[in-house]
């Protein structure tokens, strides 16, 4: 059974809970942004919503593949469900795991990339034609990286960390421009997510880094949730 990296036995399952909390927060933000898009017709809200939807998809697929890796019960259930559909093709289950890893990585990197583009102020952007060609190039790179990272997971987290670093810079500029608590909280959330990715890169040193990474990931999404609640109940 393929696995990207080794995790500590006692932490298997706890990380799934963390990911479901993060998934819930990402869906909340995507939902509110979609509502803002319906109200204003401004495309930036649509892209922002789509970015968080991609992150949600990634977290969901990761939770699915991880539960299949961790728990035999999930594997048996999946086998029973897929038997009538796939038949003999189930022998290639390794491919399904790799598809799962690929979707997880491509969706997460795509989400961070879109967030980076949306968090850039319009005046800093290039003209539309260049922007589309730039996006096309980045989408190709995201897909390529997601495929390569199936064999070397560090590449995925390193790319994620680079994108998050750029997002943090954008939010730092936003904080300097607006200078209020909400902008500071958003910047802090993305710093926590960046730290989580830095821990994930160095998981080969010790599996405890996966635990630390997951804790920082959860904290980052809790900060995002807190900011969302502050905005909603103003």
């Amino acid at each position: 059974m393929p696995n990207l990296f080794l995790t500590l036995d006692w932490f298997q399952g706890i990380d799934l809970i963390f990911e479901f909390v993060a998934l819930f927060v990402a869906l909340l933000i995507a939902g509110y942004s979609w509502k803002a898009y319906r109200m204003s017709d401004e495309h930036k809200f649509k892209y922002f919503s789509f970015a968080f939807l991609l992150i949600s998809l990634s977290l969901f697929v990761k939770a699915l593949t991880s539960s299949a890796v961790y728990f035999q019960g999930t594997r048996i259930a999946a086998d029973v469900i897929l038997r009538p559909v796939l038949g003999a093709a189930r022998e290639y289950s390794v491919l399904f795991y790799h598809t799962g890893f690929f979707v997880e990585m491509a969706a997460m990197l795509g989400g961070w990339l879109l967030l980076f583009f949306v968090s850039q102020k319009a005046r800093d952007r290039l003209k539309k034609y260049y922007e589309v060609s730039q996006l096309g190039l980045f989408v190709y790179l995201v897909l390529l990286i997601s495929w390569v990272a199936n064999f070397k997971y560090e590449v995925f987290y390193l790319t994620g960390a680079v994108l998050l670093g750029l997002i943090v810079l954008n939010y730092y500029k936003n904080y300097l421009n607006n200078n209020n608590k909400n902008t500071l909280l958003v910047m802090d959330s993305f710093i926590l997510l960046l730290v989580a990715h830095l821990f994930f890169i160095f998981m080969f040193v010790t599996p405890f880094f996966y635990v630390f990474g997951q804790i920082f990931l959860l904290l980052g999404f809790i900060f995002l949730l807190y900011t969302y609640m502050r905005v909603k109940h103003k």
Partner: protein
Amino acid sequence: MATRRSRLELIFDILLAIQNKGGKIKPTHLMYKSNLSHKLLNNYLDELIQKELVMIQEEIVKKKKAPNKTVHITEKGLGFLAEFRRMREFTDAFGL
């Protein structure tokens, strides 16, 4: 230089002007407060009436042929103002 207001910001300014005047305002005052031309204001008012965010009330005044018109903000309009403020907070917080 100030940037051009979006359609949504214009609607917000119109509704805010009505709210700041205690929920009702004369169309001429509204035109000055929201800094819009007569034609544009009428276009926006038609849209806002259609969406039930404002309503027009007419008062018959003695010695005047035409009735006095006032623009009133509705409950839905007040709800829209609150939602717009939240959306602006969201936009600022996430740098959109």
